[in-house]
């Protein structure tokens, strides 16, 4: 059934791989070799990846394998029904074999499978930084021909395509996208006569008022997810220093020790030390999500600075207790734009350079971008974050929650103008990313000054920049 669509791109076995394989066979060590490969062998797949010839798109037929990582049972069932089965129905000439992998180990399993040559046709990664490692190792196929063939620039948000480019070539596309906003207890706000703030002064006044009336201004805690601190760092860098400054720093054109970043980090540290996040720094380190959501719904906390993934948790926590809503993070320093959304991708999808049916795999990727009503429905009905497609109000089902609908239409509209922020877990290289939240804890407890923190970040970031570890960041266009 499978048409050899990719044969025209296949290359002869590289000399090194040939020697390695024949040597192993001669020694009767194929099993050991496979194990060493699984433990991190260094053989390249080299089948038309980074340096491969220009691809032409063939007929979309054959067998495509896919791993997916949806944890929530309700979402998983919905995803299988609305995504996998719908694709099978609409593409009868393609056999889609999908299996679920634990989200915690998906990167490790994929990495091992890629090295062992047994990875699926669709390669998933936890983010562009992870995908970048695969590109460097020649494991991924260049997607530009498919992007042109399927007209992705008209379907996919431009920043999303830019984020998947390495040296100008497209290798990955985000599976979904999210942003950071401020959720608030609307019932509490109405009761106290508070209004969503539009700038730092209003936000500070609100937080002071809340604290004076024994309400924690922001629910927050990182006991269960230590990287949660980077949600705040991302917000303060982008909504304080501004996205252009962040973009320039990500390009290496502006040091992280710049006064604007210093001001932003100092502001965050001050607010934490005032007890505005989670009730205090020590409490922040032990606060867990469920009690925090309960405190938020009961009106013991007023706001929650979190990613749009909280749409999964907040409605349940508030049900029968209070009303909730959200507003965009206001500008925190002078010069930062209002109505700004920082972008985050939940993961990426690429095509395995060794895929025997890359054209069919590309058809699956295109399916994600060509069905806005389907992705809007899965967002509205079970909260699955959508792929980066332009979503109109008319794409959503009539029963969609207005607050969810408003966020994604606002986000799409704001980002399509070319102004958006950069979340640290999406656009920072791995070591700098970990530094962002781990060392920020030291700033919060007073072991490190904000200036020292940024000096350390700058040194680390520049070393990763020199080693080409920085993921591609889409430019500002406004």
């Amino acid at each position: 059934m499978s048409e050899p669509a990719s044969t025209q791109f296949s290359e002869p076995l590289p000399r090194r791989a040939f020697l390695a394989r024949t040597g192993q066979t001669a020694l009767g060590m194929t099993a050991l070799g496979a194990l060493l490969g699984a433990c991190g062998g260094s053989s390249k797949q080299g089948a038309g990846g980074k340096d491969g010839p220009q691809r032409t798109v063939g007929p979309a037929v054959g067998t495509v394998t896919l791993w997916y990582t949806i944890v929530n049972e309700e979402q998983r069932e919905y995803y299988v029904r609305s995504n996998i089965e719908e694709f099978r129905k609409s593409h009868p000439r393609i056999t889609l074999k999908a299996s679920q992998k634990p989200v915690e180990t998906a990167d490790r399993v994929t990495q091992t499978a890629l090295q062992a040559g047994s990875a699926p046709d669709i390669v998933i990664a936890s983010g562009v930084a992870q995908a970048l490692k695969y590109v460097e190792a020649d494991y991924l196929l260049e997607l530009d021909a498919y992007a042109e063939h399927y007209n992705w620039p008209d379907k996919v948000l431009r920043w999303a395509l830019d984020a998947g480019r390495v040296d100008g070539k497209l290798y990955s596309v985000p599976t979904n996208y999210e942003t950071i906003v401020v959720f608030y207890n609307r019932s509490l706000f109405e009761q106290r006569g508070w209004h969503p703030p539009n700038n730092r002064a209003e936000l500070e006044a609100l937080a002071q008022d809340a604290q004076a009336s024994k309400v924690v201004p922001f629910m927050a805690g990182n006991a269960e997810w230590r990287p949660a601190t980077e949600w705040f760092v991302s917000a303060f860098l982008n909504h304080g220093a501004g996205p252009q400054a962040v973009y320039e720093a990500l390009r290496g054109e502006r040091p992280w020790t710049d006064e604007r970043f210093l001001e932003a980090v100092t502001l965050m540290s001050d607010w934490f030390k005032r007890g505005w996040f989670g009730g205090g720094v020590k409490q922040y380190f032990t606060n867990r999500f469920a009690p925090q959501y309960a405190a938020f719904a009961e009106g013991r906390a007023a706001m929650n600075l979190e990613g749009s993934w909280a749409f999964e948790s907040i409605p349940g926590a508030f049900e029968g207790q209070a009303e909730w809503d959200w507003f965009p993070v206001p500008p925190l320093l002078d010069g930062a734009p209002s109505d700004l959304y920082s972008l985050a991708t939940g993961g990426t999808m690429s095509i395995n350079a060794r895929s025997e049916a890359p054209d069919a795999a590309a058809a699956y990727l295109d399916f994600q971008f060509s069905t806005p009503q389907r992705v809007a429905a899965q967002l509205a009905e079970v909260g699955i974050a959508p792929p980066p497609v332009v979503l109109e109000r008319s794409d959503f089902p009539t029963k969609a929650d207005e607050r969810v609908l408003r966020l994604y239409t606002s986000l799409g509209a704001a980002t399509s103008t070319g102004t958006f922020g950069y979340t640290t877990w999406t656009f920072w290289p791995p070591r700098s990313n970990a530094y962002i939240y781990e060392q920020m804890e030291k700033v919060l407890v007073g072991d490190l000054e904000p200036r020292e923190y940024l000096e350390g970040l700058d040194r680390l970031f520049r070393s990763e920049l020199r080693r080409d570890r920085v993921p591609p960041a889409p430019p500002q266009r406004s």
Partner: protein
Amino acid sequence: MTVPEVSGTAARPRAQTRPRVRASAHIRRRRRLGWLFLLPLLATNGLVVFAPSLANLYYAFTDWSGVGEATWIGLENFERMLADPEFRSGLWHNVQWTALFLTVPIGLGLVGAFLLSQIRRFQLTFRIIYFIPFVMASTVNAAIWQNLLDPDQGAGAELDRAGIGLLAGVSFFGDPDLALISVAFVDNWHFWGFLVLLFLAAMQSVDPELYDAARVDGAGLWRQFWHVTLPGIRPTLVFAMVLVTIWSFLTFDYVYIITQGGPAGATETAATVLYKTVFEYGEAGYAAAMGVGLSAITIVLLLGYGLLRRLGWQI
């Protein structure tokens, strides 16, 4: 017919040789069978321990992200490791952890085992009670203590509501000054019951006549413990201390479950730094060097222990 003398002598060696031949063939067959039984285990260990260890040793000398080509960089990773403040801080926490574990659970284990050895009724019940935390999953133990020591909903908060404010607002896992000792306490609680059983088994092999003699000499419980029990279980005690030291340098699970190395790096250990280096930072080559460093510490400890035994130390 006379049987020549020689035939008798000739027959003797034949008679002696045959069983020996048979015996050695039998031993060889038994040995082969033994190896055959061992083979699956050896093959498995070769595949899951020996080969990855060799691979790890190789990658310790490379710059490798975990995928793709590894670049040979000689000793660079080891030089970096020695100067890495994060790794050194982790190792220093391991030293503190080791000091804690060589005193608190060992002491508790000895006292617990000695007291248990003095009773007959309910001994089994107490042994089971002490041992239960050891067989519980670390995630369960950790969750129990996270709840118990939660500053808002734990025992401290409950006591505060009852008018006893001793632990009010104490953030055991959130205060950088308390976090390491609090996590170690949880691990201690899970571990000390194992030591009780280990020491109790050793104490039961001490000759009871020695206790009788000590009692006749007027020795009380403490002197019996000090002069009879401790020397009697010394090999077990030293072996337990070596094991505790090795495990302390590899400690990972409770730290990772409860604090993930936080707050502000206060509970970071060498193993958590290693884990993050490979899975978060994507620096598998450097992490491999850390693994080699930790293995070297273990090997030195074991060699020291073996050397002391060879020198005649009764441990």
